[in-house]
């Protein structure tokens, strides 16, 4: 994306609260979109660039959210500091997941990771004293308390989540060009060839998974502070596992802009579906639309928006592909 366009986009989102039609609902929707995008960006690092299609990122997201909330509730640790142990715990979990499942290929890795996430869902439901069980864990609300990363309105979260999305975008671009990113892509494209050219493939995969897990956990921290509650199925459930993949899959796997485009588009679609289901007085139409969109994209446009765009333009230019 050209730098001018990028700056204009960031400025437009950052000034959203000043726009004439803006209200708390719109700003909160923007925060939801940005958090969704950030999750997609974090997943994209290992799944898009590294080709390890994890279905278990709900695990890292949930660990981040629960860790931040527990550290705040039990020890009064401010989330500004709590986000570091949260990210470290998730990275450690990423290391463990990688050690157990890193040798599995493609779909088997996906299945093993989703099973881990589902196991955590059951455990979170069971250990009620620690996690609050089915109703979930709530952080104590302190009103406008910047030290506790809490505000009454959504505006501060808009800036925070926008900052995270911009950092993740720039980080993804930097990773794609770095030696580490090239090694990850080599592992994705042909693991045998990568190993033969001297890439330590297992170490590369583990590092990628840990980085992606830590990035995911940070979004968990923000989610916890914004919604003030996390429950087992939101954190570790199957729907979350799928939802995390949508931005990158729909926008374009392994690209820096993909999760941004895909995430924004998906929230638009789901908002439209929500409004429609409100009008029709039906529950769950939005989930239905999610499922149908996913079905259509995977079957008709497997490369995502950016990938299909490149294919279309290169075909028009007579490029040989």
């Amino acid at each position, binding site marked *: 994306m050209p730098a001018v366009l990028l700056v204009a986009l960031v400025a437009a989102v950052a000034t959203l609260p000043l726009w004439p039609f803006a209200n708390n609902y719109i700003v909160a929707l923007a925060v939801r979109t940005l958090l969704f995008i950030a999750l997609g960006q974090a997943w994209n690092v290992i799944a898009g660039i590294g080709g390890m*299609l994890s*279905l278990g990122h709900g695990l890292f997201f949930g660990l981040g959210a629960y860790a931040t909330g527990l550290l705040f509730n039990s020890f009064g640790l401010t989330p500004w500091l709590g986000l570091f142990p949260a990210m470290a715990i998730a990275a450690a979990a990423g290391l463990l997941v990688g050690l*157990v*499942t890193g*040798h*599995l*290929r*493609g*779909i*088997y890795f*996906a*299945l*093993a990771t989703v*099973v*881990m996430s*589902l*196991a955590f869902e*059951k*455990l979170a*439901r*069971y250990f009620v004293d620690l996690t609050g069980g089915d109703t979930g864990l709530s952080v104590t609300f302190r009103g406008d308390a910047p030290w506790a990363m809490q505000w009454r309105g959504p505006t501060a979260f808009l800036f925070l989540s926008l900052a995270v999305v911009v950092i993740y975008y720039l980080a993804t671009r930097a990773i794609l060009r770095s030696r580490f990113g090239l090694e990850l892509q080599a592992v994705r494209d042909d693991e045998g060839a990568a190993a033969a050219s001297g890439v330590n493939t297992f170490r590369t995969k583990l590092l990628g998974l840990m980085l992606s897990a830590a990035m995911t956990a940070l979004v968990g921290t923000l989610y916890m502070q914004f919604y003030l509650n996390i429950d087992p199925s939101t954190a570790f459930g*199957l*729907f979350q596992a*799928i939802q995390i*993949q949508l931005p990158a*899959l729909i926008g374009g796997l392994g690209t820096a802009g993909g999760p941004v485009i895909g995430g924004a588009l998906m929230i638009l679609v789901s908002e439209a579906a929500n409004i429609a289901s409100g009008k029709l007085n*039906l*529950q*769950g*139409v939005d*989930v*239905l639309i*999610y*499922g*149908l969109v*996913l*079905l259509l994209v*995977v*079957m008709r446009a*497997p490369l995502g928006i950016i990938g299909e765009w490149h294919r279309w333009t290169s075909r028009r230019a007579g490029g040989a592909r």
Partner: protein
Amino acid sequence: MELVQALLSGVLVGGVYGLFAMGFSLAFGVMRIVNFAHGELVMIGMYVGFFAFSLAGIDPLLAVPVALVLVGALGAGLYRLIYRRFVGRATLQQLLVAIALALVLQTLAQILVGPDAHAVQSGWGSRFLLIGPIFLPYAELAAFAVALVCVVGIELLLGRWRWGQMIRAVADDPEIAELVGMNAQRVNIVAFALSAGLAGLAGAVLVMMYYPVSPVVGATLMPIALIATVLGGLGSIGGAFIGGILCGIVEQVTSLFWNAALQDVPLYVLLLVIMAFLPQGLFGRQSAH
């Protein structure tokens, strides 16, 4: 005695798990399709059994063949519409499509029949067989009997029946099978319909043994099918049945010694251990590596 009771209950419940796990294993073994929507097919079979009883008063046992045929036909339709494109490659795209389909079926069920869980109170009532201190409900015994009949039936089908032999031939090497004059796509439709039919059949059997049906029940059952299949060995259909029985035993023993709410957790751990250390499963020929 409690342990014996848990083991026997586990075997009886596990027989039904084995039934739908065989369907899952069939789709994987023949077509390399990891059908994440398999649990939703079981759910549909359960609703067939449930509505047969609540609307028409038909005993769920008699609804079993109906569920087999209906869900089998649905499976054939889904294969034509969706799965056909993904045969032979267990890819993430295929997994995602199946997950999306599971989500769609689950939500449709929620919209059509509501989110509440139901269980039937059929003529099987609370009658049970008492052997000393061991307590075996007739409904579970009948369910296990149905499961056994089906396992023998499937093994005979795949061993003797012409279509069964064609299914195995296509599973071994679709190109050679086409070279010697088989229509691999038609064989695959039959195999997938059989896989879905087994799910539907198992659903009706579950209703007979008072397993409560709700739109989200498939999400609980799908991991069991997956674990039973990996446990039994990818590509071994009889192995999946044994895997299902093991799953039932692990669940019941966990309930006894730990907690019923956590009965699935050791199963998940078991799956990870098998994938990490015994990738070919107990009876399998193919590995996950």
